[in-house]
């Protein structure tokens, strides 16, 4: 019985600083060395023998990677080792990034959120991860650190294909940055799953809408999807369908159909591909509509 199996044997180290981590992963491969953030996915992967690392580098002691900070430019910086519960409880997140707050609140139960981290949810590269779609629509950039220094890239460029990231073996996700929220914007994350927040996401849709000064025209729209393709992705053609227009039923339907055409969901025991496409269509429309309503209520609230 796989679920009762013990973990494979490994050697364990717990560096206390980012510099130490970078030195430890320099010249290693992700086959032999595993970075363990919260571990809520990684420990399962080891228990199922999907990953059998020779060495595990525990990151929980790297305190410098745990922060939620409002930046001078009005943006937000989040350390990779910030737990989902810490993110969720940060006043600045509740106040200015309600999309992020809502998304984190929909992940797992308290036990999982107390341990699972923002960086782990991204670096795990799972197509069912819930934070990356929300972060992508918010325009997140991530900092990859290695012994050779840092580089920044847009989160939407991070997942080339299933289970993979563009990070090199000697790099780790250290930090996530979000730009200052755009005025008249609002975002929504909707996911479909069997058992409240505890089950794997079947399909997840994040929609972020920026309304024009008239409170009706969609000046900008961003859509990103979980479990609708082998990777998390942005549906840029669907976004373009509505950009520059006021919301209409026909426009909404056309955007949802385009999003379906851009998706390539798989069939699994949770749902077959046809059913997932139907979810993508329905949730896309619902998410855009709700985001528009939210943004419009904010526009009106301003004098």
């Amino acid at each position, binding site marked *: 019985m796989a679920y*009762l199996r*013990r973990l494979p044997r490994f050697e364990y180290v*717990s560096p206390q600083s980012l510099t130490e981590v970078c030195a430890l992963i320099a010249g290693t491969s992700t086959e032999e060395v595993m970075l363990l953030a919260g*571990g809520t996915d990684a420990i399962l992967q080891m*228990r199922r023998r999907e990953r059998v690392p020779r060495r*595990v580098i*525990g990151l929980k002691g790297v305190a410098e990677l745990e922060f939620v900070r409002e930046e001078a430019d009005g943006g937000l910086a989040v350390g990779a080792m910030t737990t989902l519960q810490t993110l969720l409880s940060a006043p600045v997140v509740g106040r200015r990034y309600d999309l992020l707050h809502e998304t984190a609140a929909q992940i797992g139960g*308290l036990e*999982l959120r107390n341990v699972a981290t923002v960086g782990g949810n991204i670096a795990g590269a799972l197509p069912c991860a819930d934070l990356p779609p929300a972060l992508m629509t918010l325009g997140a950039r991530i900092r990859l650190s290695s012994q050779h220094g840092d580089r920044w890239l847009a989160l939407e460029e991070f997942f080339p294909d299933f289970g993979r990231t563009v990070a090199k073996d000697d790099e780790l996700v250290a930090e996530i940055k979000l730009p200052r929220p755009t005025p008249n914007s609002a975002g929504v994350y909707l996911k479909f799953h069997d058992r*409240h927040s505890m089950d794997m996401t079947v399909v997840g849709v994040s929609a972020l809408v920026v309304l024009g000064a008239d409170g009706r025209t969609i000046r900008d729209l961003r859509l990103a999807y979980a479990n609708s393709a082998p990777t998390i992705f942005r549906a840029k053609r669907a976004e373009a369908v509505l950009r520059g227009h006021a919301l209409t039923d026909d426009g909404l339907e056309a955007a949802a159909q385009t999003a379906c055409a851009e998706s390539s969901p798989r069939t699994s025991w949770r749902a077959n591909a046809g059913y997932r496409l139907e979810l993508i269509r329905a949730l896309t429309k619902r998410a855009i509509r709700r985001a528009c309503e939210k943004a419009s209520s904010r526009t009106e609230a301003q004098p």
Partner: protein
Amino acid sequence: MNALIPVSLRVNGVGYDIVIQPWRTLLEVLRETLAMTGTKRSCGEGQCGACTVLLDGRAVNACLYLAVEAQGKDVLTIEGPVGGDPALEQIQRSFATKGAVQCGFCTPGMVMITKNLLSHTPKPSEDEIREALVGHVCRCTGYVQIVEAIRDAASEIARKRGD
């Protein structure tokens, strides 16, 4: 590769210095090394909540936590601290008197999440109670009595405190 790692942690107020293999989970160490079998092993995936313990006051699934990573931490389990814990005892009493226990396998985890919930939300609404229980599965009771027990525990604890 059989390197043993020394770990110091407190469990229910008692300090332990143990030497363990790094691939062992906190759940395995509690049950097998420290012989505290109140914390249950069930799904092994963080889905059922039977293994919930409090780590520095925060609920975690002990099956998904490496014991070496509990170094220096304070663990509270269903066995309760030496010298007693009135809140924990009241929660257990409420579960018993409200019929919230049938087979009892999920109960230790349910009691621990209740302890966590009431520590920051002394008067939870039904929604807050159900929200706290999302990571817990009971296959016997249907949750109605469990919610009643948690509500009862909250009001009893408040009453005894003189609120």
